[in-house]
């Protein structure tokens, strides 16, 4: 049957893996967007730039930092970068929230959107100025080079890509458990629904909002580090990806945690399958689905209709 359609099982599995990887990035990024939207009520348009910053922080740590501090031997490897880059970029997000976003909460959410959009342009512009758009290579960490071979069907699964899928699923699942099962997670859900009352109960909601923004941004940076060895580290890597992620968020339903994870993975897989069966449509399939969902269920698949 496969032969009839001109499709090989190897091609199918390979595209499914590509879809799963893309879906992992969609899931991590839209999860962060959902958390941020829930508490800040703004769509974080600098999310793509912060994902790019995460990748760049890892690349700079590995290749540039040594020269900057006058010790060419010094470099920060992949594993430390996987922790340090999200911490650093998350902290920069906290500064942005405290110094800028905070001033806009009493205004229409559109202002927050414009501010974050402007920030994205500024950040990407600076990196384009410094590093150009050609893109930099980031080495796969030594422990994850090579591939698992499935001799039966003559297929090689690169170890690094499997790691990316596993790591992002783990992070998404852990975030979900945290939000659904812990006290702080209950504050987060309550703050999404009615923050004023939550604060009147004695919860420091402004601090909760700062933490949520920091976490969402750190998640984007984490995705950026995971992406660095797969895609080129370039100033535009975020803006290419984020457009699809916004479509994912719209499809899943603004602000739904589980919705953003499931939709992210699902759409990655659908994209992969489309590449196999009708490659010409693979770039637009997500947007076609978005249009259909908006027509049939404007609040998104997992969103609450109001």
């Amino acid at each position: 049957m496969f032969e009839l359609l001109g499709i090989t099982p190897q091609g199918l599995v390979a595209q499914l893996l590509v879809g799963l990887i893309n879906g992992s990035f969609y899931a991590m990024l839209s999860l962060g967007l959902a958390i941020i939207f829930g508490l800040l009520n703004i769509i974080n348009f600098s999310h793509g730039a912060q994902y790019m910053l995460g990748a760049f922080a890892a690349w700079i740590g590995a290749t540039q930092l040594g020269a900057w501090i006058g010790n060419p031997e010094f470099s920060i490897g992949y594993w430390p970068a996987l922790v340090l880059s999200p911490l650093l970029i998350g902290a920069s997000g906290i500064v942005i929230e405290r110094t800028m976003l905070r001033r806009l909460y009493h205004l229409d959410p559109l202002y927050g959107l414009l501010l974050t959009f402007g920030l994205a342009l500024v950040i990407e512009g600076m990196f384009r100025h410094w590093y150009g758009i050609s893109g930099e290579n980031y080495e796969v960490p030594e422990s994850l080079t090579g591939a698992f071979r499935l001799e039966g069907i003559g297929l090689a699964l690169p170890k690094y890509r499997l790691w990316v899928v596993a790591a992002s699923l783990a992070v998404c699942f852990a975030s979900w458990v945290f939000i659904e099962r812990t006290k702080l997670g209950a504050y987060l859900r309550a703050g999404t629904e009615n923050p004023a009352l939550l604060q009147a109960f004695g919860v420091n909601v402004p601090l909760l909002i700062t933490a949520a923004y920091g976490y969402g941004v750190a998640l984007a940076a984490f995705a950026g580090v995971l992406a660095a060895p797969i895609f080129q580290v370039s100033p535009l890597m975020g803006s290419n990806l984020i457009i699809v992620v916004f479509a994912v968020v719209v499809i899943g339903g603004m602000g739904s945690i589980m919705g953003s994870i499931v939709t992210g993975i699902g759409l990655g897989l659908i994209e992969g399958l489309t590449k196999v069966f009708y490659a010409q449509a693979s770039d637009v399939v997500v947007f076609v689905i978005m249009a259909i969902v908006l027509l049939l269920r404007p609040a998104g698949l997992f969103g609450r209709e109001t």
Partner: protein
Amino acid sequence: MPEAHAPGTEYLRVTDLHAFYGEAHILHGMDFVVNRGECVSLLGRNGAGRTTTLRAILGLTGRRSGSIMLNGREAIGMASHRIARLGVGYCPEERGIYASLSAEENLLLPPVVASGGMSLEALYAMFPNLAERRASQGSRLSGGEQQMLAIARVLRTGARLLLLDEITEGLAPVIVEKLGEVIRRLREADYTIVLVEQNFRFAMPLADRHYVVERGRVAEVVGKGEVEGRMEMLHEYLGV
């Protein structure tokens, strides 16, 4: 510490309280006092400004001025979460049950602000219905259950001053009766209570003093013993 105050000490004193929503000037100099262990009611027609008074005490309105002395501390300039931590429990008019949280998560949500709050077991003993519904989503509870939950939720935190807004609104007579019983038990347990009510007959036997609110200020004060003699005036103000 509440223990430091002898009975009869004032617990909440609101003086010349003005509050705004945006440009709308809603409270025009509210004045009232609640002593420790007392229950007072704020009566008035719809739109008189009673809900706004409670919200202003908690810092939930826009700009406000005047003075709110809470247990010896000036709260007018504080953020809401600090005010709550002075020992204030709030039951909002719309009940404020979180739809995305289960009944028990709602119950456990408000942080403990002082020692001496009721335990989960004691609360479930007081409101047996809630025990049965503990796993239900907040959105699935009946109106009566939501109201019980909204009250139970603030009794866990150790707050000694309860601001209760229209707790009988829209509830069946049996549930109203049950709520009256709960208020009586809370009074015996020395809670200090501000009862905003539309239902004068509910408030009458419970409160030590009634403040009649009209257009954002206190128009009349009626002591418990004076109610009979001033019925006509009350009818006029409340339109009952």
